[in-house]
């Protein structure tokens, strides 16, 4: 009986471990899935919007105007340096900086309410293009949080 009990006991422990492993695995997949959702907006952009060009691209006046609009509307969440604040993402990341102007324009128009990004469709189109011209003028720069992670979260 005791032998049987121990077999049953070890089988129970194995089941518990398997269940725990399954839960951890599911949580890991969920994290990956959430991360995938976070970056999925680029793929959602229709082809017609993706290929739109910025009428103000490279114009110094538009970049200056965009900087003012950015300070008024975007810096509260994304930081004055556009490197992100808390959970709000950096706009100088590789993902944003390598997105086409049309993709960013689509995202500004639609937002992502589930992730806290409002739609900016109430801003006139020229103003939105100015913000994009300014963002692209900033260039790519990894956020301080990302560089810490790369170094193994050194203080």
């Amino acid at each position, binding site marked *: 009986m005791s032998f049987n009990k121990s077999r049953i006991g070890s089988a129970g422990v194995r089941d518990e471990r398997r269940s725990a492993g399954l839960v951890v695995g599911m949580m890991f997949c969920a994290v990956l899935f959430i991360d995938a959702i976070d970056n999925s907006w680029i793929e959602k952009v229709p082809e017609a919007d993706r290929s739109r060009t910025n009428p103000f691209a490279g114009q110094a006046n538009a970049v200056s105007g965009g900087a003012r609009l950015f300070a008024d509307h975007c810096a509260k969440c994304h930081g004055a340096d556009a490197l992100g604040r808390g959970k709000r993402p950096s706009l100088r990341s590789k993902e944003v900086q390598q997105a086409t102007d049309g993709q960013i324009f689509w995202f500004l128009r639609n937002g992502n*309410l589930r992730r806290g990004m409002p739609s900016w469709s109430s801003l*006139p*189109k020229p103003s939105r293009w*100015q913000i994009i011209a300014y963002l692209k003028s900033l260039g790519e720069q990894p956020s301080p949080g990302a560089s810490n992670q790369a170094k193994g979260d050194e203080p």
Partner: protein
Amino acid sequence: MSGQHTSNDSTVFTGFRWENRFRALLHDHFINPVLYFEYENLNHADRSLLEVVGHDSISDLRLSNAQGRSDTERELEMKLILSSNAKGWKMSENFITEKNLNAGETWEFGYALGVSRPLALAASAKACVFCRENFFAAAELYGGLGDLDGFGLKATSHYAAPTLAFNIPHRPTVSFSPSFGLNANSVGVIYRIKVSYEFQQISNWFRRSAR
């Protein structure tokens, strides 16, 4: 919270409003519907004319503060707000319905149509307070549509209101709007001066260190 002061009468607290809105569609469309809900607990001394419903008329405003305070209304208001943005113009159509929760009261209806546009669509290169993009011209048409017992324009009041708004950068928005009554049930002219300020990202105030 709501209160008012009437010349040669008194200053009174009139009650409170609680409002919320829900955006029905997550993505931007040509028409974006928003559902608006409001609960208000106000006495009749409240003279703010935020919207017109049912058979609201000039006679509702002729009570003294003492007379008005004795009668409190608990009302539920719902709006379907349809807004669109096109070529710098913002357009909005509101269909309003209001129910006084006191027994025996019926549903009342109203409408509001509005259009606005900044004086410039692109931001100036140089920082400036009086730039054209900080000014908005708007026009509004609003009025009552009767109630369940008598839907329509009969015995209702209507207003047309041109508006000029000035969005002071990093400061409040100030707007001036004279509303002109369009029929005998309406007040002749109402001058509305509004100062509003939007507190953004309140959660940032409680962060220990915000970069």
